[in-house]
């Protein structure tokens, strides 16, 4: 009887490169057959486990982050920091547009305030709000943001030739955390409270 396979030979066997003479040993050895079967089964299972695929935008963003880092000699913030603040970009755009609209076509009297956009928020948009895990009073902040958004006039969208804004309620409910909602709330308050000339 030839000696049993070494660990390295078991790997060669699994990869199909073990010399025939040693393969013959496995055929006649119960222990080696069992070990080889276990090894093959485990290898098959491990091989089948993929890494979860990141969101599609991630790859291009990664290139940009690497490029920024090498352009700035590694001074760019890491991915996590960038991700934490990325919400500010669209938020700032929306807030700027709202401020422009409010300044240009602000209400002349409380009774003349136009109602902007749909007032109903889809159930699926509001559901996650109640279940916000951070324990912050996100419901109240969202309600206030929706009220303030509704108080903004909508005439400016057409008179200024601006493209219609996305439904703020849906965007806020679906994407913003409590502290982000509070930031939006402050911006909207500024827009609504600003005196018209």
């Amino acid at each position, binding site marked *: 009887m030839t000696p049993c396979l070494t660990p390295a030979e078991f790997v060669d066997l699994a990869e199909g490169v073990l010399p025939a003479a040693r393969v013959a040993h496995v055929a006649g050895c119960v222990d080696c057959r069992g070990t080889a079967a276990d*090894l093959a089964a485990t290898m098959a299972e491990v091989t089948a486990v993929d890494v979860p695929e990141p969101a599609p935008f991630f790859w291009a963003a990664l290139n940009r982050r690497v490029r920024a880092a090498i352009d700035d000699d590694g001074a760019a913030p890491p991915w996590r920091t960038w991700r934490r603040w990325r919400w500010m970009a669209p938020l700032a755009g929306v807030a700027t547009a709202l401020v422009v609209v409010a300044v240009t076509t602000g209400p002349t009297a409380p009774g003349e305030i136009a109602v902007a956009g749909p007032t109903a928020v889809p159930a699926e948009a509001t559901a996650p709000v109640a279940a916000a895990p951070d324990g912050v009073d996100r419901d109240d902040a969202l309600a206030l943001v929706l009220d303030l958004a509704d108080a903004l006039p909508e005439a400016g969208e057409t008179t200024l030739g601006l493209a219609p804004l996305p439904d703020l309620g849906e965007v806020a409910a679906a994407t913003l955390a409590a502290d982000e909602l509070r930031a939006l709330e402050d911006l909207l308050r500024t827009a609504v409270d600003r005196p018209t000339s």
Partner: protein
Amino acid sequence: MAERGVTAGAVDPAADDAVLVAAAAAGSAEAFDVLVTRHRRAVYQLCYRYVRHHDDAADLTQDTFVRAWRALPTFRREARFTTWIYRIAVNVSLNKVSARGPVAEPIDAETLVDHTAPRPGDALADAERAAAVRAAVAALPPRQRAALILRTYHDLSHQEIADIVGTSVGAVKANVFHALANLRKRLGARP
């Protein structure tokens, strides 16, 4: 790096790694960007198998490529770029893991569950089993883990793995064997 500058110029996206590495080492950020695009998924997946967290894997992937850019002038061209970048990725991942310690993989149903599967219960069980396998792999001793990951998921030769890990071909094979044996013990047979 900055002093190498970011040179503009036509870069053939189909050029082989050696050509791109030479151009990048001479200062072409465009050539390096092609290398990043070509290898980013493999590097991300390698890092993810160590840290099992997207944000950490993304940070490590970025760090790997930035370190590679800085070290390009010292890259010995007889080695494959793939082997070299994997070596950097393994090192930055090991540094991260050793500094932080093991963590549980977040169970993100949106990411892990295939919603197109006809039987959601089976999909969830598969996702849980996959997470358990990744956790078991990440808990292996460093050399076993590196040998298994690089051989199983990245199809590197035993010699290339030996170069990365700094050991012999025989030791790499033994590490793969013991890694699989440890996983078998830890996971048991698939139910």
